[in-house]
């Protein structure tokens, strides 16, 4: 029983950064933007978070700065999107840039080269009244700080948001940008807000790693969690209801690969678990997408949507500019057949 409680506890901690990344990916995807820069946002969040927490001694400020750093990258992405830059290329560039920039800054200004450890206290675990006194439950809840609970709360908030008027607008922009634009929605602004929010969320996920969980920063400490988050969001079909379970698949697979070794399960087998989970997840997504083309369509299309109308491609029909939908002059009647 104790082992199971410890396993769940470890799984929750390993899931948390993946959940934040998955939420970021989901929000971007639902707004119709293929966001592959999540890895860089997580890493930037981890770095800026610990930097500010170390400098000010205030962990909350650190987490807030991490969110700001992620949001800034989101803003950069949105600005580039508006200019018509290919976001896939930009995202790959950003991922490399942030990785090298953190190493460079660490080396140039922080003395430490591979590891930066400002000696801060990690964010203390939350003590939940009553629950933390129960026998097994207290073990499950041990060592979970408020960022973990924030992740859970965000899932609910995003789910609720998608049901509000403004959330519906975001979904409409993602599903059918042309229709949304002709209905008077500001596609560019909606996507900008979505990208900034996604960046902030991914940044907090990074802060969980550095400020929340370890109290130190190491080179490339995001460890592909941004990419795993994107996979988790895909597995969840970009739906809020499934995003936490999908992220948990990866977090718990990682925990299982660590914990099962204590029970004489051969390490070769346990080490396959995370990769195996990712593989199975992608197969499931592929099969789903084949039967219901929505997911893949959303993703394929998202990097091609021109943001401002009229589009420049002659092959696409030129939609009416936003805002002039209703007062556009009627097309001149065609008399050629008369």
């Amino acid at each position, binding site marked *: 029983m*104790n082992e199971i409680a410890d396993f769940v506890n470890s799984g929750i*901690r390993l899931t948390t950064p993946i959940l934040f990344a998955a939420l970021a990916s989901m929000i971007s995807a639902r707004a119709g933007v293929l966001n592959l820069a999540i890895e860089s946002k997580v890493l930037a969040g981890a770095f800026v978070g610990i930097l500010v927490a170390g400098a000010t001694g205030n962990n909350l400020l650190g987490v807030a700065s991490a969110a700001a750093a992620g949001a800034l990258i989101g803003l950069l992405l949105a600005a580039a999107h508006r200019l018509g830059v290919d976001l896939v290329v930009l995202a790959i560039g950003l991922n490399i*840039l942030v990785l090298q920039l953190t190493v460079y800054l660490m080396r140039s200004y922080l003395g430490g080269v591979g590891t930066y450890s400002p000696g801060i206290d990690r964010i203390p675990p939350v003590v939940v009244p009553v629950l933390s006194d129960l026998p097994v439950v207290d073990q499950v809840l041990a060592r979970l700080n408020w960022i973990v609970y924030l992740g859970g709360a965000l899932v609910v908030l995003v789910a609720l948001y998608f049901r509000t008027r403004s959330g519906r607008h975001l979904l409409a922009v993602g599903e059918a940008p042309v229709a949304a634009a002709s209905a008077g929605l500001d596609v560019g602004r909606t996507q900008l807000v979505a990208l900034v929010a996604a960046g902030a969320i991914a940044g907090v996920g990074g802060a969980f790693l550095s400020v929340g969980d370890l109290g130190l920063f190491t080179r490339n400490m995001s*460890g592909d969690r941004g990419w795993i988050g994107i996979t988790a969001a895909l597995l969840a079909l970009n739906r809020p209801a499934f995003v936490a379970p999908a992220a948990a698949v990866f977090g718990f697979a990682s925990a299982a690969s660590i914990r099962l070794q204590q029970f004489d399960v051969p390490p070769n087998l346990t080490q396959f678990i*995370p990769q195996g989970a990712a593989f199975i997840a992608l197969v499931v997504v592929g099969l789903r997408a084949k039967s219901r083309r929505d997911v893949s369509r959303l993703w394929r299309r998202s990097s091609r949507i021109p943001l401002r109308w009229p589009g420049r491609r002659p092959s696409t029909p030129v939609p009416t500019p936003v805002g002039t939908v209703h007062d556009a002059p009627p097309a001149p009647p065609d008399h050629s057949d008369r």
Partner: protein
Amino acid sequence: MSRTPLALAAVAAAAALTLLAGCSSGGPATPGSTDAGAFSYALITPGAAGDGGFIDSAIAGTKLAEKQLGVTGRVVEAESVSQQEGVIRSTVATHPGIIIAPGLDPDSLLAVAKENPDQLFGVPSDIYVDELPKNVQAFSINVHESSFLGGYVAGSLTTTKKVGAVLGIDNPGLNQFFYGYKQGVLAACPDCEVTPSYLNGEFSDPSVGQEAALALYQGGDDIVFAVAGLSGQGVFTAAKQEGEFAIGVDSNQDGDAPGTVIVSVMKRVDQTTYNLIKAAQAGEFESGFVAAGLADGVSGLSWGDGSTVFADHGPAALAEQIPALSAKVDDLKQQILDGSIVVCDALNDPTSDACAALGLKG
């Protein structure tokens, strides 16, 4: 139409920034051989400085050589395997006296070495190939004996009679650490239990290292040997949280978590780097493999280097045992060197009796 130049400018700016970051990670390079006549070296590393392990150690070795031998040279970083061949070639073109190449892709290195028979190459730490060209000298540092000493320390200090190890991956190179360690633990405490935990090749993910160590501490282990590169930092944070202890690896990590890291099992890549440069400068370069270990001073415990971090910062109950234990470790070292203790070498001789006794299936 005005958007096209703007978009291009944005892409160009991003590209320039990326390049800038890439170049600036060129690191603490001292300006090339300015001193005419002085012997020069070039160190090509397979990653950025700051791994806290063999790369930093190799750089320290070159610094020592600069100070002691008056040589000059520079450090070149080749971040990925795909860059390495190009970097090696361009380094050869600058004609340094010797090229030090720790941990590079063996195929690229040996291919370039064969094409340039007049250029000397030195590999300060393991290269897993069968034979070397005439112009390459390679050290292989054996750590099983020093891990035995580390294990003996763990076995002597454990109060729960359970100790563990977090290893980056399940391969013979890291198992050389583990089985030496295990044998050392059992030598001090025959009824102790030694548990390994492998990390699936994650050498730079302290979060996973922390979870693995937590699992061990929760299972009752009170000392964990961290053999996992940067992931090992997570072992130290887990040990600090739980009020337990850890053992460091590769370089002297005693100071990474003072009072928590008891001792470090060191792989003295700095020493082999220094030796290579020294030999090449003196014209005593010899091609082929050089096996080195505890006997040559290229592997050993941080205590042997005079590290007293744990004795100074550790809890009194443990710290007061350190002087006696340190003397005992020196005694054991002598016994290993004179052959009265044979330590399992899981890398070079996994079928030996010593290994079979530890349950290693060769």
